[in-house]
């Protein structure tokens, strides 16, 4: 080994971590090399100085403090994953409170964000639904129509009276609102809403219903080969007298939109039964066979005492000469011609008084 190598090995030599051969070589070299001898001496003294440094004492609280921390650590270890779900009681309630508050605020904002979108769309949907449901038939449908009707009342939706062709399935029309009496241009298609089902099931509400002076049932005839009488029977069986709207042709003007439906009083059971009876009589005995085809439209109604929209009846001999208190009118439309059949209801059956036809804008009795 060279001198420099031996210089570098002196540190290990002191520690005794060298091989026996290295040790011999170093000791041989030290006998001759004063520099290395001095360096070894200084190195030994340095190590002595380092080792002579007094040890510091740990503070008296150290072990206690360490063990306090270790105990906390041991507790957490014991709890493990499961324990972390169960927080200390000092932390848990505030966290729960914050969570509840967060949910409340979130719910509030969700509610607010939904609200403006739903409100404007509500009205159109209801209106559309009501219109859609109106021409339906049957008991179930009728019940739905009732609901719609109440919606109509509250919404004050106007409905145009119009003829409706009778579909192959039975058709039901919304009652048409009446027009004020003093309106000469537009005569009133008085609605008659007959609802046996409701009347039977809801006596209380029926009592509130007002008797309408004008009752009218319509049975527009479609399908040429279908017997109008059969349709009428079907209609009767369904507990439904369809209150059709029919434009009055007295003044030769088209029908005008009626007044608010909400103001229309409900008909009495008796009226409705008689209207059905009148219509049955009309179809069975008075309706010409030639007219029992597609394109025939007819509706029946009670003649109001004040003759609203029917002032021309006062001049009619047949009307005036009859002492009958319950008069019914069947409005008929067939191939562009209008006619009215006046009935008297006596002794539980209708009797035809006369037939009016529209000629040159005025109603005249058919000879």
């Amino acid at each position, binding site marked *: 080994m060279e001198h420099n190598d031996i210089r*570098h090995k*002196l*540190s*290990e030599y002191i*520690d005794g*971590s060298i091989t026996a051969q290295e040790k011999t070589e170093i000791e041989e070299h030290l006998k001759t090399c004063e520099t290395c001898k001095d360096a070894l*001496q*200084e*190195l030994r*003294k*340095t*190590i002595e*100085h*380092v*080792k*002579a*440094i*007094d*040890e*510091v*004492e*740990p*503070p008296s609280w*150290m*072990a206690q*403090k*360490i*063990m306090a*921390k*270790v*105990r906390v*650590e*041991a507790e957490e*270890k014991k709890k493990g994953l499961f324990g972390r779900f169960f927080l200390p009681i000092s932390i848990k309630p505030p966290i729960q409170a914050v969570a509840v508050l967060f949910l409340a605020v979130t719910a509030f904002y969700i509610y607010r964000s939904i609200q403006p979108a739903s409100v404007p769309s509500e009205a159109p949907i209801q209106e559309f639904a009501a219109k859609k449901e109106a021409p339906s038939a049957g008991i179930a449908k009728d019940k739905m129509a009732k609901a719609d009707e109440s919606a109509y009342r509250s919404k004050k939706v106007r409905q145009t009276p119009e003829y409706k062709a009778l579909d192959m399935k039975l058709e039901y029309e919304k009652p048409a609102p009446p027009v004020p009496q003093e309106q000469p241009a537009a005569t009133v298609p008085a609605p008659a809403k007959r609802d046996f089902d409701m009347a039977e099931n809801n006596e209380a509400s029926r009592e509130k219903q007002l008797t309408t002076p004008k009752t009218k049932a319509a049975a527009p005839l479609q399908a040429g080969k279908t017997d109008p009488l059969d349709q009428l029977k079907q209609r009767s069986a369904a507990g439904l007298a369809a209150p059709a709207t029919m434009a009055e042709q007295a003044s030769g003007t088209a029908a005008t939109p009626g007044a608010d439906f909400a103001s229309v009083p409900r008909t009495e059971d008796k009226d409705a039964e008689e209207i059905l009876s009148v219509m049955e009589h009309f179809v069975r005995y008075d309706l010409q066979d030639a007219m029992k085809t597609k394109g025939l439209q007819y509706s029946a109604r009670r003649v109001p005492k004040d003759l609203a929209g029917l002032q021309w009846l006062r001049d009619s001999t047949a009307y005036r000469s009859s002492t009958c208190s319950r008069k019914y009118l069947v409005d008929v439309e067939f191939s562009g011609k209008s006619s009215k059949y006046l009935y008297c209801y006596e002794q539980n059956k209708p009797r035809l008084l006369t037939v009016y036809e529209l000629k040159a804008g005025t109603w005249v009795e058919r000879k």
Partner: protein
Amino acid sequence: VHKNGTNIPVTLSKDTEDITTPAQDDDAGLVSSSQGGDLRAYERLVIKHQKRMLNTAFRIIGDYDDACEVVQDAFVAAYRNIRTFRGQAKFSTWLTSIIVNLSKNRLKQVRSRQGHEVFSLNDPVRTDDGEMTMDPPSRDLSVLDRMEKRDVQVRVQDCINALDQDFREVLVLRDLQEFSYEEIGGMLKVRSGTVKSRLFRAREMVKDCLKRFLGEL
């Protein structure tokens, strides 16, 4: 330990155990009990080793309070990972490796803190009479007739502190704590050849440093 972002040397313990030859460990029984959750056994280990660990940390860090904190963190970390200790090295060796690692991290923090501080409490304070240097009482000795010895010891500590981190920890572990080259290599994850050369250079540097302060050795 967690708040300082220190890695617990779990893998290091494995290396340490691999390098160290199986030795008779006086602590084996206490360690085994501690692994079973016996806190009293662990407390005895703490009481037994706290002084040596504190001295190791103190000589590496050079600050007593920082060393105390490091020792506390090291014992808590050791308990947390005690189940991973398989007894292939001495418990004290494993514990020291944790101390060395945490001391290194502490030194890094201190250095970055000092880098950001505008002034240090240890800096000289300017007064009307000139500069006044802080002179805190030494914790080591208080006996007057050992003033001279204390003076030498302060110089030695200063010289150790003047060493770079790599050299300082080797010197402390070898000359103060008397670990073998292999044990030191295992703790620091370096080969024993590196430990030897680092130790040689560390001793030479301290020797030169002391000669400057004390004249003759």
